[in-house]
């Protein structure tokens, strides 16, 4: 079965032809040129494919493209339209990347966390990011970066 799916991608309306069985991740990468979400495990366990749908982090590798009809989909490309975000700057400063493959997913999950809870404790950071895997095991620097974001937000009274 074929569908014309219309949704908002990074702030702009898009329209794309898909089959029912096409994955959102593949459609984003292969048909719409959005390549920050990565194919990692393909079963929703590693978080490398994370995008925000209506503000909530979702695994695009286990989402059918037809399911996003009418939704707001945001990937890393959408977040950094006006340059790196506070979270991205903290990742860069803390060298919170090694190979970088997991980084877009981490930044998306971290963005949702900070939206809901601007100054999380380290425990809350670890709980929220537990579903993102970094095979280089760069977790310490990622948590350091997020602690810094949390502290900054607290100082700014957020």
């Amino acid at each position: 079965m074929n569908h014309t799916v219309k949704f908002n991608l990074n702030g702009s309306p898009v329209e794309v032809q898909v089959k029912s069985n096409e994955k959102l991740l593949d459609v984003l990468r292969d048909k719409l040129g959005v390549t920050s979400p990565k194919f990692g495990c393909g079963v929703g366990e590693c978080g490398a494919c994370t995008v925000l749908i209506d503000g909530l982090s979702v695994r695009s590798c286990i989402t059918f493209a037809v399911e996003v009809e009418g939704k707001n989909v945001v990937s890393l490309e959408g977040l950094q339209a006006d340059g790196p975000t506070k979270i991205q700057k903290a990742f860069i400063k803390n060298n919170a990347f090694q190979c970088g493959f997991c980084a877009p997913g981490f930044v998306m999950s971290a963005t949702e966390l900070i939206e809901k809870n601007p100054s999380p404790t380290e425990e809350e950071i670890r709980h929220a990011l537990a579903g993102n895997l970094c095979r280089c095991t760069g977790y310490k620097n990622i948590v350091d970066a997020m602690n810094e974001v949390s502290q900054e937000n607290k100082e700014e009274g957020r």
Partner: protein
Amino acid sequence: MENFRYLKPAAIDKALSLKKELGSKARFLLGGTDLFIQMDKGFVVPETVIDLKGIDELKGIEKKDGYVYVGARVTWTQLIESDLIRKEFPALWEASDIVASVGVRNTGTLVGNICNAVPSLEGGSPLLAYNAAVLVKSSQGEREIPAADFFTGVKKTALADDEMVTGVKIPVKNGKFGEVYVKMGRYEGEDLAQAGVAVVVDDKNNYRIALNAVAPTPVRAEKAEALLSGKKLDESLAEKAAELALESISPISDIRSSKEYRLHMCRVMVKRALMASVSRMETGKPALNTRLI
């Protein structure tokens, strides 16, 4: 993955008439965090997928006439963010907060979890311990299935081909109570339970204990409950009950742990969950999400 027909009806009646017509050739889709993977691997090849996310009647958590109703579309995240669930059903809250990861909890649902009915399911034990009922509809009518009768085997439920689970119904408790859900997993973030225990106690010394991932279905530890019934808990009684709880389970060895380890840990977990439940009832501590293992 095979291509399929994707339909997104806006009303329950429409979805039910489609299911009656198509039977096992059609599957209902909620969050899809289980179904998608089964389809992707070719374990399930439905001709039609009926997405229920267009049906508003399946939304929402509502307290009415002594029960809390959780609709089929309610996600784990919505359960976690519900003050009602946090205050009145802390074991369900704790179980919800430890399912997989945020990215899965944002789309995955309690009802999808029980319909998938894998032995490790997080949603089963709290519902059994609450004596909850599963609300079922078909184009012929509706019925309620007690949670304990809903699960009939590994990935098997009492649901007929033309039926839909529209939600669950959990009795509201009167008086003081204490609850705990404790999960043993290898790491936080996506790992399935090696074992899980839900305990609900009240100030009349009624005890309800349910376990998951240690039998083909979630199970109540009825012998242990009978031993405890009417008695005030102390450490040695909790130990005896935990020992007796092992008679209600039949764990297997698999990739996540051995049968022996599961048996050993269930004894530890049931004892700690009992002690923590009573302590929560009396003192409000340990706080939600405190690590018990």
